[in-house]
């Protein structure tokens, strides 16, 4: 070992903690990370003795997506599922944002609501299905309700935490300039927490998608999650793969959309975006 090589520094920039790397290298690695599993999948599915029902190949899954799109109205499934996820998530956000703002800003509201929320969020959303069917019925509302239950309680706690992370000095500076309580909320806490809040919305949108299959367990006859469940019943492994991949793909696209908005809306964080 050379004397200049200290722990945590020296050597290739690739292995330096948090150090920036060449953008070309970054994209190459990202591409490799995506392609390698695909190749592994391709190889595994072509090994002798691999049953198509056990592990369909990428080509089978692509073919299935194609026939789903042409004969089975994939677009409608995508649309209804996206609608359910976005509606449940938006309903969560509409309540969680103001509620979290108050929990994070006022200790009294925190004492009143946070322990309760903390308690409820550990309850499994799946277990609420019978209750939701009883209270909301089996119409569209029930699917939205399951996604709401799955995301809301986590979201409230995260929003409250984002609000609490606003540096006290920013708030006190406004107080010394004579700001009223509503001015502090509106002109300091909300703008200061905005980037973190958008991140919270992005992360919870991801969770909302993971609850889709659960939500479409409830008396559905449409949607990507329902398609996966039905395929399971008929052991159509290629369709299960297709459904899971499509859900992942839509989630990824939405996530990238959020990141784009983040970059555009908060140019002052230029150092944090890559």
């Amino acid at each position: 070992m050379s004397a200049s090589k200290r722990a945590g520094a020296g050597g290739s920039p690739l292995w330096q903690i948090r150090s920036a790397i060449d953008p070309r290298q970054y994209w190459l690695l990202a591409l490799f990370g995506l392609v390698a599993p695909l190749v592994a999948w391709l190889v595994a599915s072509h090994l002798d003795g691999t049953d198509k029902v056990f592990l369909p190949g990428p080509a089978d899954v692509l073919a299935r997506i194609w026939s789903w799109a042409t004969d089975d109205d994939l677009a409608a499934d995508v649309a209804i599922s996206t609608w359910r996820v976005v509606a449940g998530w938006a309903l969560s956000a509409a309540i969680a944002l103001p509620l979290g703002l108050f929990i994070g800003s006022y200790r009294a509201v925190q004492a009143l609501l946070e322990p309760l929320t903390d308690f409820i969020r550990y309850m499994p959303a799946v277990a609420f299905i019978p209750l939701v069917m009883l209270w909301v019925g089996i119409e569209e509302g029930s699917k939205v309700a399951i996604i709401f239950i799955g995301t809301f309680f986590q979201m409230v706690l995260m929003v409250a935490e984002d609000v609490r992370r606003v540096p006290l000095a920013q708030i006190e500076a406004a107080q010394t300039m004579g700001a009223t309580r509503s001015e502090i909320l509106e002109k300091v806490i909300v703008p200061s927490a905005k980037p973190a809040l958008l991140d919270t919305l992005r992360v919870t949108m991801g969770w909302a998608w993971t609850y889709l299959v659960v939500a479409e367990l409830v008396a559905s006859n449409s949607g990507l999650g329902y398609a996966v469940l039905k395929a399971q019943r008929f052991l159509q492994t290629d369709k299960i793969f297709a459904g899971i991949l499509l859900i992942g793909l839509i989630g990824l696209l939405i996530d990238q959309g959020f990141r784009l908005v983040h970059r555009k809306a908060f140019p002052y964080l230029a150092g944090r975006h890559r």
Partner: protein
Amino acid sequence: MTASIDIRDAFKTFGHGPQAIHALEHAKLAIRPNEFVTFVGASGCGKSTLLRMICGLESLSRGSIAVNGQPIAGPGVDRAMVFQHYSLYPWLTVTQNIKFCRQLKAHTRDRTSADVEKAAGRADALIRLMGLSHVADAYPSQLSGGMQQRVAIARALMSRPPILLMDEPFGALDAQTREVMHDLIRHVHRMEGSTIVFVTHDVEEAIYLGQRIVLMAPRPGRIDTLYDVPLPAERHQDMKLTPEFLALKREILERIRETSGMKTDLEQLARLNADVGADAALTTD
């Protein structure tokens, strides 16, 4: 604009019962209009607590603090504060940060177009005074620590506060930048006529800036000694080497050491060294 500050037997206790921390006891001090007072003292002696009490950010356990004879209740636009760091708004540019108070109702009550114009003129003047013209449209994160503190000072001065409170505002800056900031803040004191209360760890800074130095002592936090600084109103960096300056610096440092309990720490160190010596003797046996 200027104002007097009267600290009338102020007490501050954090917590209750046996765990209570007596951050401040029997603090009495009268600060004259347009005076520049600096507070020094060992860590934990209650400097920040007293400053925050004057600001109105911290309540008093007993006693009162009056500005121009009026007891204070909470923060007010007559007292501006410069914090050590993290107080700028990262989503606003330098100019927008400085003009922040113009968005608040407290500063825009009977607002005429002449007032608006005057305010814009003042913001421009402060930007020039603080040497911020070339970064007026930059975000705080793009500025060095020294530049950020200039913005914080300009923002505090924007509303022409009669009283300016500063808690170790230059604590994180390098020595050269600090010297520049010292002359800048003395210039502001002369130009604006505000009363300045300045908390610092650095005795040299306290003497160079202050007309009067308040030495505080810990456990319980209290005001220990007041020193008048024997330097002319007009100051320059060479004065830091004059005999009067050095004598006062020595006197204050000595007193801080006496009150901070550092003496006992030295005894501990001596005992520790003795023990090490004994251990060494054992092992060589």
